[in-house]
Protein backbone atom coordinates (compact mmCIF):
# COMPACT_ATOMS: atom_id res chain seq x y z
CA UNK A 1 0.00 0.00 0.00
CA UNK A 2 2.80 2.39 0.92
CA UNK A 3 4.51 1.67 -2.41
CA UNK A 4 1.38 2.41 -4.33
CA UNK A 5 0.93 5.72 -2.56
CA UNK A 6 4.56 6.63 -3.12
CA UNK A 7 4.01 6.04 -6.79
CA UNK A 8 1.02 8.33 -6.74
CA UNK A 9 2.96 11.02 -4.93
CA UNK A 10 5.66 11.28 -7.60
CA UNK A 11 3.18 11.31 -10.48
CA UNK A 12 3.58 14.33 -12.72
CA UNK A 13 1.69 17.30 -11.33
CA UNK A 14 -1.12 18.49 -13.49
CA UNK A 15 -1.79 22.13 -12.79
CA UNK A 16 -5.20 22.08 -14.44
CA UNK A 17 -6.71 19.08 -12.76
CA UNK A 18 -4.88 19.19 -9.45
CA UNK A 19 -7.08 19.93 -6.44
CA UNK A 20 -6.80 23.39 -4.95
CA UNK A 21 -3.81 23.75 -2.65
CA UNK A 22 -4.51 23.30 1.03
CA UNK A 23 -3.78 26.94 1.85
CA UNK A 24 -6.90 28.00 -0.03
CA UNK A 25 -8.99 25.60 2.05
CA UNK A 26 -7.58 26.12 5.48
CA UNK A 27 -9.66 23.76 7.64
CA UNK A 28 -10.16 20.06 7.64
CA UNK A 29 -12.48 17.48 9.17
CA UNK A 30 -10.58 14.64 10.78
CA UNK A 31 -12.30 11.39 11.60
CA UNK A 32 -10.48 9.49 14.32
CA UNK A 33 -10.44 5.77 14.87
CA UNK A 34 -12.43 4.31 17.72
CA UNK A 35 -12.87 0.67 18.65
CA UNK A 36 -16.66 0.81 18.53
CA UNK A 37 -17.82 2.06 15.17
CA UNK A 38 -18.14 -0.67 12.59
CA UNK A 39 -16.24 -0.33 9.35
CA UNK A 40 -19.44 -0.85 7.37
CA UNK A 41 -21.12 1.95 9.31
CA UNK A 42 -18.22 4.35 8.78
CA UNK A 43 -18.36 3.61 5.06
CA UNK A 44 -22.11 4.16 5.14
CA UNK A 45 -21.70 7.56 6.80
CA UNK A 46 -19.05 8.69 4.31
CA UNK A 47 -21.27 7.65 1.42
CA UNK A 48 -24.51 9.01 2.80
CA UNK A 49 -23.34 12.29 4.30
CA UNK A 50 -20.54 13.29 1.92
CA UNK A 51 -21.97 11.49 -1.11
CA UNK A 52 -18.60 9.92 -1.79
CA UNK A 53 -18.32 7.05 -4.26
CA UNK A 54 -17.98 3.65 -2.69
CA UNK A 55 -14.27 3.31 -3.43
CA UNK A 56 -13.42 6.68 -1.88
CA UNK A 57 -15.60 6.02 1.16
CA UNK A 58 -13.87 2.69 1.73
CA UNK A 59 -10.42 4.16 1.26
CA UNK A 60 -11.10 6.86 3.85
CA UNK A 61 -12.68 4.33 6.18
CA UNK A 62 -9.63 2.06 5.93
CA UNK A 63 -7.37 5.04 6.54
CA UNK A 64 -9.25 5.76 9.76
CA UNK A 65 -9.04 2.14 10.78
CA UNK A 66 -5.41 1.50 9.92
CA UNK A 67 -3.78 4.85 10.54
CA UNK A 68 -6.03 6.10 13.28
CA UNK A 69 -7.33 9.12 11.40
CA UNK A 70 -8.28 10.46 8.04
CA UNK A 71 -9.01 13.86 6.55
CA UNK A 72 -12.45 13.35 5.17
CA UNK A 73 -13.26 16.88 4.05
CA UNK A 74 -11.54 20.22 3.60
CA UNK A 75 -12.99 23.69 3.36
CA UNK A 76 -13.86 26.76 5.37
CA UNK A 77 -13.93 26.53 9.14
CA UNK A 78 -17.69 26.98 9.17
CA UNK A 79 -18.19 24.15 6.66
CA UNK A 80 -15.85 21.88 8.58
CA UNK A 81 -17.58 22.58 11.87
CA UNK A 82 -20.85 21.65 10.22
CA UNK A 83 -19.29 18.40 9.01
CA UNK A 84 -17.85 17.66 12.45
CA UNK A 85 -21.18 18.18 14.12
CA UNK A 86 -22.79 15.89 11.55
CA UNK A 87 -20.14 13.23 12.25
CA UNK A 88 -20.85 13.59 15.97
CA UNK A 89 -24.54 13.13 15.37
CA UNK A 90 -23.71 9.87 13.57
CA UNK A 91 -21.58 8.90 16.57
CA UNK A 92 -18.26 9.11 14.76
CA UNK A 93 -15.33 10.66 16.56
CA UNK A 94 -14.36 13.72 14.55
CA UNK A 95 -12.47 16.95 15.03
CA UNK A 96 -12.09 20.15 13.04
CA UNK A 97 -8.49 21.31 12.69
CA UNK A 98 -6.56 23.86 10.69
CA UNK A 99 -5.48 22.04 7.53
CA UNK A 100 -1.80 22.70 8.20
CA UNK A 101 -2.09 21.14 11.63
CA UNK A 102 -0.52 17.90 10.47
CA UNK A 103 -3.49 16.14 11.94
CA UNK A 104 -3.92 13.80 9.04
CA UNK A 105 -2.66 12.63 5.72
CA UNK A 106 -3.21 14.33 2.45
Amino acid at each position, binding site marked *: *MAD*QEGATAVAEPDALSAPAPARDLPWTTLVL*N*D*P*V*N*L*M*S*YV*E*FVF*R*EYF*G*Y*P*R*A*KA*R*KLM*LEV*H*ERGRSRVSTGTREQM*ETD*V*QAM*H*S*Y*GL*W*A*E*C*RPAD*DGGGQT
Partner: protein
Amino acid sequence: MRILPDHTGEHVILQMEDAEQSIIAALLSDVSQLLSADLPEPDADPFERLVGHLDPDQEVTRPGDPALLRLLPDVDSTDPDRSAEFRRLTERDLRESKLHSIRIALHSLGQHPGPVALDADAARAWMRALTDVRLVLASRLDITQDEDVERLMDEATDVGETGEAVLSLYELTTWLHEHITQFMLEGLPSHPDDGIDEDLTDLFDDDWLDDEPDDDEPGDDEPDDDQRDGPPDDVPPDDVPPDDAQPDDEEEDR
Protein backbone atom coordinates in the same frame (compact mmCIF):
# COMPACT_ATOMS: atom_id res chain seq x y z
CA MET B 1 -33.46 -12.20 17.13
CA ARG B 2 -33.46 -12.21 13.37
CA ILE B 3 -33.26 -9.50 10.74
CA LEU B 4 -34.63 -9.77 7.25
CA PRO B 5 -35.77 -7.45 4.50
CA ASP B 6 -39.48 -7.47 3.74
CA HIS B 7 -40.64 -8.66 0.35
CA THR B 8 -40.46 -5.15 -1.15
CA GLY B 9 -36.93 -4.60 0.09
CA GLU B 10 -38.04 -1.22 1.46
CA HIS B 11 -38.23 -2.23 5.06
CA VAL B 12 -36.01 -4.18 7.34
CA ILE B 13 -37.84 -6.43 9.75
CA LEU B 14 -36.51 -7.07 13.24
CA GLN B 15 -37.91 -10.22 14.74
CA MET B 16 -37.24 -9.95 18.43
CA GLU B 17 -38.34 -11.80 21.48
CA ASP B 18 -40.25 -9.67 23.96
CA ALA B 19 -37.31 -9.87 26.33
CA GLU B 20 -34.95 -8.66 23.61
CA GLN B 21 -37.26 -5.75 22.85
CA SER B 22 -37.31 -4.84 26.53
CA ILE B 23 -33.55 -4.97 26.75
CA ILE B 24 -33.05 -2.77 23.70
CA ALA B 25 -35.68 -0.33 24.99
CA ALA B 26 -33.96 -0.17 28.37
CA LEU B 27 -30.59 0.50 26.76
CA LEU B 28 -32.06 3.26 24.60
CA SER B 29 -33.76 4.81 27.61
CA ASP B 30 -30.52 4.76 29.59
CA VAL B 31 -28.69 6.68 26.90
CA SER B 32 -31.64 9.02 26.59
CA GLN B 33 -31.39 9.81 30.30
CA LEU B 34 -27.66 10.35 30.03
CA LEU B 35 -28.17 12.79 27.16
CA SER B 36 -31.07 14.68 28.73
CA ALA B 37 -29.34 15.40 32.01
CA ASP B 38 -29.20 19.17 32.52
CA LEU B 39 -31.08 19.89 29.33
CA PRO B 40 -33.73 22.59 29.71
CA GLU B 41 -37.32 21.43 29.74
CA PRO B 42 -38.49 20.73 26.20
CA ASP B 43 -41.44 23.06 26.68
CA ALA B 44 -39.34 25.97 27.88
CA ASP B 45 -40.13 29.28 26.22
CA PRO B 46 -38.56 29.10 22.76
CA PHE B 47 -37.40 32.69 23.07
CA GLU B 48 -35.69 31.96 26.37
CA ARG B 49 -34.01 28.99 24.80
CA LEU B 50 -32.83 31.03 21.85
CA VAL B 51 -31.45 33.71 24.14
CA GLY B 52 -29.77 31.07 26.25
CA HIS B 53 -28.28 29.70 23.08
CA LEU B 54 -26.73 33.02 22.19
CA ASP B 55 -25.80 34.16 25.66
CA PRO B 56 -22.01 34.19 25.80
CA ASP B 57 -22.13 33.94 29.58
CA GLN B 58 -24.04 30.71 29.59
CA GLU B 59 -21.60 27.99 30.42
CA VAL B 60 -21.92 24.57 28.89
CA THR B 61 -19.78 22.29 30.96
CA ARG B 62 -17.56 19.73 29.28
CA PRO B 63 -18.91 16.32 30.36
CA GLY B 64 -16.97 14.69 33.16
CA ASP B 65 -18.39 11.25 32.36
CA PRO B 66 -16.18 9.71 29.65
CA ALA B 67 -19.20 8.00 28.09
CA LEU B 68 -21.07 11.29 27.72
CA LEU B 69 -17.91 13.00 26.48
CA ARG B 70 -17.61 10.36 23.77
CA LEU B 71 -21.17 11.13 22.66
CA LEU B 72 -20.44 14.86 22.73
CA PRO B 73 -16.76 15.14 21.76
CA ASP B 74 -14.54 18.22 21.64
CA VAL B 75 -14.35 19.89 18.25
CA ASP B 76 -10.57 20.15 18.64
CA SER B 77 -8.94 18.38 21.55
CA THR B 78 -5.78 20.47 21.03
CA ASP B 79 -7.70 23.72 21.55
CA PRO B 80 -9.73 23.84 24.77
CA ASP B 81 -10.96 27.39 24.22
CA ARG B 82 -12.31 26.73 20.75
CA SER B 83 -13.80 23.45 21.98
CA ALA B 84 -15.59 25.22 24.83
CA GLU B 85 -16.97 27.83 22.46
CA PHE B 86 -18.12 25.20 19.96
CA ARG B 87 -19.71 23.22 22.75
CA ARG B 88 -21.57 26.29 24.00
CA LEU B 89 -22.98 26.91 20.53
CA THR B 90 -23.75 23.39 19.39
CA GLU B 91 -23.92 20.87 22.20
CA ARG B 92 -27.60 21.32 22.91
CA ASP B 93 -28.51 20.76 19.26
CA LEU B 94 -26.34 17.67 19.16
CA ARG B 95 -27.98 16.27 22.28
CA GLU B 96 -31.40 16.95 20.86
CA SER B 97 -30.61 15.31 17.55
CA LYS B 98 -29.37 12.22 19.37
CA LEU B 99 -32.44 12.19 21.59
CA HIS B 100 -34.62 12.48 18.49
CA SER B 101 -33.08 9.31 17.01
CA ILE B 102 -33.60 7.47 20.28
CA ARG B 103 -37.23 8.57 20.40
CA ILE B 104 -37.82 7.23 16.88
CA ALA B 105 -36.21 3.91 17.82
CA LEU B 106 -38.24 3.64 21.02
CA HIS B 107 -41.39 4.56 19.13
CA SER B 108 -40.92 1.73 16.63
CA LEU B 109 -40.37 -0.70 19.49
CA GLY B 110 -43.39 0.50 21.39
CA GLN B 111 -45.92 0.00 18.61
CA HIS B 112 -47.10 -3.52 19.24
CA PRO B 113 -45.67 -6.90 20.01
CA GLY B 114 -44.27 -8.86 17.13
CA PRO B 115 -41.85 -8.01 14.36
CA VAL B 116 -40.61 -4.43 14.11
CA ALA B 117 -40.65 -3.07 10.55
CA LEU B 118 -38.27 -0.19 9.91
CA ASP B 119 -38.43 1.99 6.83
CA ALA B 120 -35.25 3.70 5.69
CA ASP B 121 -35.77 6.76 7.92
CA ALA B 122 -36.42 4.64 10.98
CA ALA B 123 -33.43 2.45 10.13
CA ARG B 124 -31.25 5.57 9.98
CA ALA B 125 -32.45 6.61 13.41
CA TRP B 126 -31.78 3.09 14.70
CA MET B 127 -28.22 3.15 13.39
CA ARG B 128 -27.52 6.43 15.16
CA ALA B 129 -29.25 5.42 18.37
CA LEU B 130 -27.57 2.01 18.49
CA THR B 131 -24.21 3.66 17.85
CA ASP B 132 -24.70 5.83 20.91
CA VAL B 133 -25.80 2.83 22.97
CA ARG B 134 -22.69 0.93 21.88
CA LEU B 135 -20.42 3.90 22.60
CA VAL B 136 -21.78 4.11 26.13
CA LEU B 137 -21.52 0.36 26.73
CA ALA B 138 -17.97 0.36 25.36
CA SER B 139 -17.05 3.20 27.65
CA ARG B 140 -18.45 1.30 30.64
CA LEU B 141 -16.44 -1.75 29.54
CA ASP B 142 -13.32 0.37 29.18
CA ILE B 143 -13.02 -0.52 25.50
CA THR B 144 -10.57 2.04 24.19
CA GLN B 145 -8.50 0.06 21.65
CA ASP B 146 -9.48 -2.10 18.71
CA GLU B 147 -8.02 -5.12 20.51
CA ASP B 148 -10.01 -4.61 23.70
CA VAL B 149 -13.17 -6.37 22.54
CA GLU B 150 -11.23 -9.46 21.59
CA ARG B 151 -9.36 -9.36 24.85
CA LEU B 152 -12.59 -9.06 26.81
CA MET B 153 -14.04 -11.98 24.89
CA ASP B 154 -10.99 -14.11 25.57
CA GLU B 155 -10.92 -13.35 29.24
CA ALA B 156 -14.63 -13.12 29.77
CA THR B 157 -14.31 -14.80 33.11
CA ASP B 158 -12.20 -11.93 34.41
CA VAL B 159 -14.74 -9.22 33.80
CA GLY B 160 -17.11 -10.46 36.48
CA GLU B 161 -20.80 -11.16 36.15
CA THR B 162 -21.75 -7.57 35.51
CA GLY B 163 -19.00 -7.19 32.95
CA GLU B 164 -20.15 -10.31 31.16
CA ALA B 165 -23.72 -9.07 31.07
CA VAL B 166 -22.64 -5.70 29.70
CA LEU B 167 -20.40 -7.42 27.17
CA SER B 168 -23.28 -9.57 25.95
CA LEU B 169 -25.40 -6.44 25.51
CA TYR B 170 -22.57 -4.90 23.56
CA GLU B 171 -22.43 -7.93 21.29
CA LEU B 172 -26.17 -7.98 20.82
CA THR B 173 -26.32 -4.31 19.83
CA THR B 174 -23.25 -4.71 17.62
CA TRP B 175 -24.89 -7.57 15.77
CA LEU B 176 -28.10 -5.61 15.33
CA HIS B 177 -26.26 -2.51 14.19
CA GLU B 178 -24.15 -4.44 11.71
CA HIS B 179 -27.13 -5.97 9.99
CA ILE B 180 -29.21 -2.81 9.82
CA THR B 181 -26.17 -1.08 8.35
CA GLN B 182 -25.73 -3.80 5.78
CA PHE B 183 -29.34 -3.42 4.75
CA MET B 184 -28.93 0.34 4.44
CA LEU B 185 -25.65 0.08 2.52
CA GLU B 186 -27.36 -2.09 -0.04
CA GLY B 187 -30.07 0.53 -0.41
CA LEU B 188 -27.76 3.52 -0.93
CA PRO B 189 -28.06 4.97 -4.41
CA SER B 190 -24.99 4.21 -6.44
CA HIS B 191 -22.62 7.05 -7.20
CA PRO B 192 -21.77 7.81 -10.86
CA ASP B 193 -18.16 6.95 -10.00
CA ASP B 194 -18.98 3.62 -8.42
CA GLY B 195 -17.24 0.97 -10.42
CA ILE B 196 -14.44 3.36 -11.32
CA ASP B 197 -11.22 2.92 -9.35
CA GLU B 198 -12.80 0.07 -7.49
CA ASP B 199 -9.42 -1.62 -7.78
CA LEU B 200 -8.24 0.79 -5.07
CA THR B 201 -9.91 -1.46 -2.59
CA ASP B 202 -8.08 -4.47 -3.98
CA LEU B 203 -4.93 -3.00 -2.52
CA PHE B 204 -6.17 -4.02 0.85
CA ASP B 205 -6.59 -7.43 2.27
CA ASP B 206 -10.22 -8.38 2.02
CA ASP B 207 -10.22 -9.05 5.73
CA TRP B 208 -10.22 -5.34 6.29
CA LEU B 209 -13.45 -4.97 4.44
CA ASP B 210 -16.76 -5.53 6.04
CA ASP B 211 -18.23 -8.92 6.18
CA GLU B 212 -20.28 -8.76 3.07
CA PRO B 213 -23.41 -10.83 3.16
CA ASP B 214 -22.83 -14.02 1.30
CA ASP B 215 -25.80 -13.49 -0.97
CA ASP B 216 -23.64 -14.22 -3.95
CA GLU B 217 -22.45 -17.56 -2.75
CA PRO B 218 -23.15 -19.79 -5.71
CA GLY B 219 -23.59 -22.83 -3.52
CA ASP B 220 -26.13 -21.14 -1.32
CA ASP B 221 -29.48 -22.32 -2.56
CA GLU B 222 -31.40 -21.29 0.53
CA PRO B 223 -34.41 -19.38 -0.72
CA ASP B 224 -34.14 -16.91 2.15
CA ASP B 225 -30.47 -16.22 1.97
CA ASP B 226 -31.02 -12.60 2.96
CA GLN B 227 -32.37 -13.71 6.22
CA ARG B 228 -29.85 -13.59 9.00
CA ASP B 229 -29.95 -15.56 12.13
CA GLY B 230 -29.22 -13.56 15.13
CA PRO B 231 -26.51 -13.84 17.63
CA PRO B 232 -26.86 -17.47 18.51
CA ASP B 233 -24.85 -17.28 21.37
CA ASP B 234 -23.35 -15.41 24.10
CA VAL B 235 -26.29 -13.62 25.64
CA PRO B 236 -26.54 -15.11 29.08
CA PRO B 237 -29.86 -16.67 29.92
CA ASP B 238 -30.35 -14.07 32.65
CA ASP B 239 -30.67 -11.32 30.09
CA VAL B 240 -32.27 -13.01 27.16
CA PRO B 241 -34.23 -16.18 27.25
CA PRO B 242 -32.67 -19.03 25.36
CA ASP B 243 -33.31 -18.94 21.67
CA ASP B 244 -35.75 -21.78 21.78
CA ALA B 245 -38.29 -19.99 19.61
CA GLN B 246 -35.98 -20.07 16.62
CA PRO B 247 -37.30 -23.31 15.11
CA ASP B 248 -40.84 -21.96 15.29
CA ASP B 249 -39.79 -18.86 13.42
CA GLU B 250 -38.34 -21.01 10.71
CA GLU B 251 -41.62 -22.79 10.28
CA GLU B 252 -43.63 -19.61 10.18
CA ASP B 253 -41.61 -18.45 7.25
CA ARG B 254 -42.54 -21.35 5.09
